[in-house]
């Protein structure tokens, strides 16, 4: 219900209600807060003043009470009652009995008579029991009058014990009761003033905000609504301006931009529609024409106006109207139809071939609003198509003629491929490209006929030449073999010679070694002879010394003989007694004689020895000379042997080199032999090839005379053969490589003169 109400109500009313509601709630809350705060503050102030009064009263009473001065206490309380209107102060004992009071009439009553609220009584009871003050101010209502009650317990302090003993912890309480009548009256007055001000403020604020809303929002949105209604009705020419920078200003500008964009798009669509140069029209879902362009009007010769709103088939009179209409198909299926051929009738009932494409027009929700059709006049295309078909037929005929001639030429070339060069292509007088090609092919075939004829001649000459070369090659091979045998013998001989020389060299080395040994022996002999000569010299010197000593011996012998004579004389003097001595003297003299004789012999012998020694020394010197000569001669013999050895080594090296040369000659000779064999094989192949060539050329069918002039393929005039340009000078050698492989292969089966050459080759 609220939702419907909100939907139906105008914007400014809704805003007014919302403003009133919001401001009312806000101000009510503020009012409540203000009154509550004011009341609390006033209550707090009253509480503070009551508490202050109570504290002052207690402080004033404390001393008189401590000394038991009841009168002073009574007087003070009386003074308080007189000077503070609306305030009553009570001092109760622990039994809530009023002992002192600010008014005389209150004394000796119980406090319950002056505290009606249970809360106040409980607070007093609690204060008397526990000695604690109530934490919050108490409000007591008695006889329709409210009072604030402040309770302060009187604790039993040591100074009280004299009168009150220490039996009770709390002696009583001092209670202040302040009337709130005036306070509530002032609070109510303030609240009423505040409410009045708030209501007035609320009213002013609402009026102000409403006027502001109307001025800034409602009026501008209303204008925008009016314009948008026009746009919704299809009028997109509206224009609105708002130079405010706020959201509504931007909304208005966006609306303006949006309308402009819509206009642009409509203009764009119209431009597209008008830009279609082909005949074009649109229909609604009832197939009534909603738009038709000038091209369509011209095509059908229709009047400039009076077409719109008519049924489509009345305007176009197409053969497709009764079935196959592309627009109807598009409207029925929602899919486009492209390239539908049909026939229209203009006002003069002439048929117009056309091709049409159609599709549907949709709104933004995809609903089909109508359809359109684009027509293309195919009159020119149909004419062109007919021309094209006739040209195609001509082209087909020419193509068949050409294929016929190509097949003829192909048959000629096929026969030529099988060796039949007797037929030629036929030309016409048209001198077309085919005629030119036919003449060229004929000329080529003529050239090949001439070439093959020449090849036949040359192949015979080649075969003969090959046979001669082969025969001479056989001789060459034979001679080469003989040469090889001779070289082998030379090589053997040389090898023998080298062996001999090496043996001689070995002997010479042995002789050289012996000769060196002989020189060494001769050196040793010469050294011995020298030592002998030295020994001889020494012996000669010693013999001279012996001769000198022999003189001394002779002198001793002479002296001995004298002594023996003297002894015999003395013995003779001694007589008998000296007889024995005489005998001894005699023996001594005999000995002296024999010694003298022996000394003379020795001397003679020594002299002989000395003489012999000198003679031997001379001989020894001569022997020494001979030895020296022997040494020299042996050295010369050794040098000569060294030279012979070097010569023999060089000879051996030379012979080895010769042998190597001879072996290389043998090798070369052997290679020559192999080469001759290869030549023979190649010559055999060449002979075979020449024979094949000969056989190949023989298989070509040139003509009856073999002159290279061929017959045309089909009767008619003979064509002159065009000779190939073979160049000047000697006859060209036939080139087998240029022939088709198939032709060469075909010769193998025919054999020819192979056997003749085969026998020759077998000799190798």
């Amino acid at each position, binding site marked *: 219900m609220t939702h419907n109400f909100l939907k139906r109500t105008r914007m400014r009313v809704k805003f007014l209600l919302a403003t009133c509601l919001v401001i009312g709630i806000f101000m009510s809350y503020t009012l409540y807060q203000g009154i509550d705060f004011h009341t609390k503050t006033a209550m707090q102030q009253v509480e503070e003043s009551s508490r202050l009064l109570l504290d002052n009263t207690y402080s004033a009473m404390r001393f008189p009470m401590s*000394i*038991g001065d009841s009168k002073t206490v009574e007087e003070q309380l009386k003074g308080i009652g007189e000077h503070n209107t609306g305030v009553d102060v009570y001092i109760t*004992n*622990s*039994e809530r009995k009023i002992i002192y009071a600010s008014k005389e009439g209150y004394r000796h009553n119980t406090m319950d008579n002056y505290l009606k609220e249970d809360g106040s009584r409980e607070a007093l009871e609690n204060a008397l029991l526990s000695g604690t003050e109530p934490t919050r101010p108490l409000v007591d209502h008695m006889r329709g009058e409210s009072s604030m009650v402040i309770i302060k317990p009187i604790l039993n302090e040591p100074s009280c014990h*004299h*009168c*009150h*003993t220490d*039996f009770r912890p709390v002696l009583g309480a001092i209670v202040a009761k302040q009337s709130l009548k005036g306070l509530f009256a002032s609070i109510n007055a303030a609240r009423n003033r505040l409410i009045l001000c708030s209501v007035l403020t609320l009213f002013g604020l609402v009026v102000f905000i409403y006027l502001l809303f109307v001025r800034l929002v409602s009026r501008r949105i209303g204008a925008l609504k009016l314009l948008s209604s026009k746009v919704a009705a299809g009028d997109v020419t509206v224009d609105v301006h708002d130079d405010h920078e706020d959201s509504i200003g931007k909304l208005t500008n966006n609306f303006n931009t949006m309308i402009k964009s819509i206009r642009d798009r409509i203009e764009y669509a119209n431009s597209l529609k008008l830009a279609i140069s082909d005949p074009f029209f649109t229909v609604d879902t009832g197939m009534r024409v909603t738009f038709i362009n000038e091209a369509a009007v011209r095509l059908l010769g229709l009047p400039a106006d009076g077409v719109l709103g008519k049924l489509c088939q009345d305007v176009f009179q197409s053969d497709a109207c009764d079935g196959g209409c592309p627009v109807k198909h598009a409207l029925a299926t929602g899919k486009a139809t492209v390239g539908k051929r049909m026939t229209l009738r203009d006002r003069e009932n002439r048929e117009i071939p056309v091709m049409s494409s159609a599709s549907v027009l949709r709104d933004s929700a995809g609903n089909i609003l109508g359809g359109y059709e684009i027509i293309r006049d195919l009159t020119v295309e149909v004419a062109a198509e007919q021309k094209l078909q006739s040209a195609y037929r001509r082209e087909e005929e020419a193509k068949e003629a050409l294929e016929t001639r190509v097949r003829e030429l192909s048959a000629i070339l096929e026969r030529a491929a099988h060796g039949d060069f007797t037929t030629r292509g036929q030309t016409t007088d048209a001198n077309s490209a085919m005629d030119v090609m036919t003449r060229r092919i004929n000329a080529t075939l003529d050239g090949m006929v001439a070439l093959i004829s020449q090849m036949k001649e040359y192949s015979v000459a080649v075969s003969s030449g090959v046979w001669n070369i082969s025969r001479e090659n056989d001789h060459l091979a034979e001679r080469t073999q003989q040469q090889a045998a001779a070289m082998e013998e030379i090589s053997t001989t040389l090898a023998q010679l080298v062996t001999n020389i090496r043996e001689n060299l070995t002997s010479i080395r042995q002789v050289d070694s012996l000769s060196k040994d002989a020189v060494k022996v001769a050196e040793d002999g010469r050294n011995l002879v020298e030592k002998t000569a030295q020994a001889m010299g020494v012996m000669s010197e010693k013999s001279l010394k012996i001769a000198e000593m022999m003189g001394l011996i002779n002198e001793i012998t002479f002296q001995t003989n004298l002594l023996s004579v003297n002894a015999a004389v003395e013995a003779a003097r001694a007589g008998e007694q000296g007889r024995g001595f005489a005998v001894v003297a005699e023996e001594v003299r005999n000995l002296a004689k024999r010694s003298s004789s022996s000394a003379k012999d020795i001397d003679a012998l020594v002299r002989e020895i000395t003489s012999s020694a000198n003679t031997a020394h001379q001989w020894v010197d001569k022997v020494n000379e001979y030895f020296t000569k022997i040494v020299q001669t042996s050295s010369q013999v050794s040098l000569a042997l060294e030279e012979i050895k070097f010569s023999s080594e060089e000879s051996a090296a030379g012979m080895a080199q010769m042998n190597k040369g001879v072996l290389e000659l043998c090798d070369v000779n052997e290679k020559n032999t192999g080469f001759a064999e290869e030549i023979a094989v190649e010559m055999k192949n060449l002979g075979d090839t020449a024979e094949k060539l000969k056989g190949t050329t023989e298989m070509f069918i040139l003509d009856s005379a073999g002159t290279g002039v061929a017959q045309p393929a089909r009767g008619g005039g003979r064509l002159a053969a065009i000779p190939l340009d073979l160049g000047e000078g000697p006859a060209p050698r036939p080139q087998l490589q240029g022939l088709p492989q198939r032709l060469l292969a075909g010769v193998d089966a025919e054999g020819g003169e192979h056997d003749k050459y085969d026998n020759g080759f077998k000799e190798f």
Partner: protein
Amino acid sequence: MAEEMETNGYVGSVACQPCHEQQFRAFHNFARKSHSFASVEKMAVNLPEEKIRPCYGCHTTGYGKPSGFVSPEQTPELKNVGCEACHGPGRLHVKTQDPALIRRTVTIEVCKECHTEERVQAFRYKPILYAGSH
């Protein structure tokens, strides 16, 4: 002497009145001592007896002494501080009217039994020997 001791005792202030009328009236009317038990009665509300009893020493006459105050019901004539509190028991003096049997001159020391220094400071109840209460 032993007879005196046996017969002497507290008789209450009223017994002094016939001979000492002027002093009795002055004392009764102007001395706060003569109403001292009223304070006890005033404070005794809902107090147990054992808490009240210590008050009797200075708020009654002869409490704790032979023939002294026992209770307000038993010895109502002694429930206030009377003449005998300072002058001593007066039974023999009343009987014999012999001045020697009563403490004629009271010294300050007698006062100090109750009017201690502490109480004087607390209540300002200074002992007044020569003031005109009687």
